């Protein structure tokens, strides 16, 4: 009995006062995580792998890259270009505005309650996407929206001046509603990580506030800011519900194109549909990967 405990080196380290431990079979070791792997396999990995396989499966049998070549089709390119344009614009604008707001409530010297209101609201707004968000903007800037009507009173006909909520500009305005708060939430901790000592040291050496930001704060923050902007890019690139609700799914956008492809083969080429979907996964994977590298980099200074 005693020898059986002592022969296992692992057990002698952890056993306290001869307590009887459950038998440590290898299978028991894995038992706790098996449901997780099975579940993720069934509902996250297998569906993606099926798409990947179908995108490579030649109609004649065997594997082919033919469908990835077909991506250079006018419909597909215009959808991807619009997705990338909107994602870049909302990532950069959302990143800058979100950063300024985070600065205002942390370093900018606004009273303390402003900060907690901002974080709570950001939590809400960054999750307030999809149909309700689209509706809210229709009631504000749609053809009969409140702001549209208000501007009409002042003689400005918004929809006659070329503006439309159902356009690139409109969708950008709507997306910013969840992009800015996400930036605020992610970048606030980074701003908190700026040490007071650095600022004081810079000031004691005679640096102006501009020099402090240019040579100390911004270089430290750059990986976080860039990383979060990439996160915003992915966030907007994969967004489907808001655009669907706003435009009825008929706008040119990569996610909406996939939606149309699911309902009926609009591309008249099932294989191409799978390639379009896989293209999105690749773009998302690359952006998340860069994000994680930059995030690790920023942790060197900020944590």
């Amino acid at each position: 009995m005693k020898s059986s405990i002592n022969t296992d080196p692992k057990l002698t380290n952890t056993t306290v006062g001869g307590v009887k431990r459950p038998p440590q079979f290898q299978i028991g070791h894995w038992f706790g995580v098996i449901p997780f792997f099975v579940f993720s396999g069934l509902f996250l990995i297998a569906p993606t792998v099926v798409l990947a396989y179908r995108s490579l499966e030649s109609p004649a049998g065997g594997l082919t890259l033919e469908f990835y070549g077909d991506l250079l089709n006018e419909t597909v390119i215009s959808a991807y270009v619009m997705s990338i344009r909107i994602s870049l614009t909302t990532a950069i604008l959302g990143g800058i505005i979100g950063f300024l707001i985070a600065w205002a409530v942390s370093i900018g010297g606004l009273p303390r309650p402003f900060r907690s209101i901002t974080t709570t609201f950001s939590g809400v707004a960054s999750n307030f996407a999809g149909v309700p968000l689209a509706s809210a903007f229709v009631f504000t800037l749609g053809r009969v929206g409140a702001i549209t009507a208000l501007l009409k009173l002042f003689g400005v006909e918004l929809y006659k001046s070329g503006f439309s909520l159902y356009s690139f500009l409109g969708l950008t305005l709507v997306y910013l509603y969840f992009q800015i708060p996400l930036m605020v939430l992610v970048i606030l901790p980074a701003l908190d990580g700026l040490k007071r000592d650095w600022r004081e040291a810079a000031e004691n050496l005679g640096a102006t506030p501009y020099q402090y930001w240019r040579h100390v704060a911004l270089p430290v923050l750059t990986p976080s800011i860039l990383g979060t902007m990439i996160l915003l890019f992915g966030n907007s690139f994969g967004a489907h519900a808001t655009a669907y609700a706003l435009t009825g799914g008929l706008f040119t956008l990569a996610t909406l194109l996939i939606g149309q492809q699911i309902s009926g083969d609009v591309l008249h080429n099932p294989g191409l549909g799978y390639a379009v979907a896989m293209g999105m996964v690749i773009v998302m994977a690359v952006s998340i990967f860069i994000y994680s590298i930059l995030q690790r980099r920023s942790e060197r200074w900020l944590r």
Partner: protein
Amino acid sequence: MTLSSNSASSVVKAPEKKSSLKANQFWARVIFSISVLYFLIPLVATFYWSLRGKKDVLGFEAYKKLFADTNFLPAFSESIVNAIAAIFLSLLIIVPTAYWVTLRLPKLRPVVEFITLLPFVIPAIVLVFGLIRLYSRPPLLWTATYDSSRVLLVCVYAALSFPYMFRSVDNGLRAIDVRALTEAAQSLGANWVTILLRVIFPNLRTALLSGALLTFAIVIGELTIALYMAQHTLGPYMADLTRSKVYEPSAMAIVSFAITWAAMGIIQLVTGGQGQTTGGH
């Protein structure tokens, strides 16, 4: 000599510092006010519309009509049930996994973390595309009936909650000494189920609650996956509503905003602002 120059510089510097602080505060206020306008106007406009359900009078007519709609309550309650089922399923999978990874299999942590992040990499529209192709024909026919599709939907929602659930639970586990608690429980003769249910779960209450509420906020109005799996839940219902009705969508948007607000507010309350509060779109 040095003394005097020092004091001189500090005399000059002090007001300069004050003025830069004032400038900061000025710009902080400007930025804050503009963003308040951007974020509040759509909400105010929607709220105003929602009060105009009856001609020429402000009132709650739109809300009454919404709740009287025969499709609203079934869709709403179905979404609530789906969300709660997904939360429990997710907890049932994530808590043992996070516990095991912390205690027994630390080498597996990067793999588990990577998998929990997959919902960020696979857009919902791509995921539902794959699910339909995989489960809508033999040998893995899963979408044959409405109810079987619903089970599939709940499972997918649980998987979508992994990033938030794993992170909250993992943070929660870091805050307590899992090893000491486990060994104490073992020395008192507890088995694994008892340890998880009566020692670990209660210690993770805050973390579990914030993970659960975040999942709720994301799942309750989810559109993309429910839409293509032909489910009559709140998301597709809301999308239909915006096309068929004039005032009800505004009431619906306000109700939905209130739900999100309630979920996030409770997270802030229970975690003291430390909760992780971002979802996907």
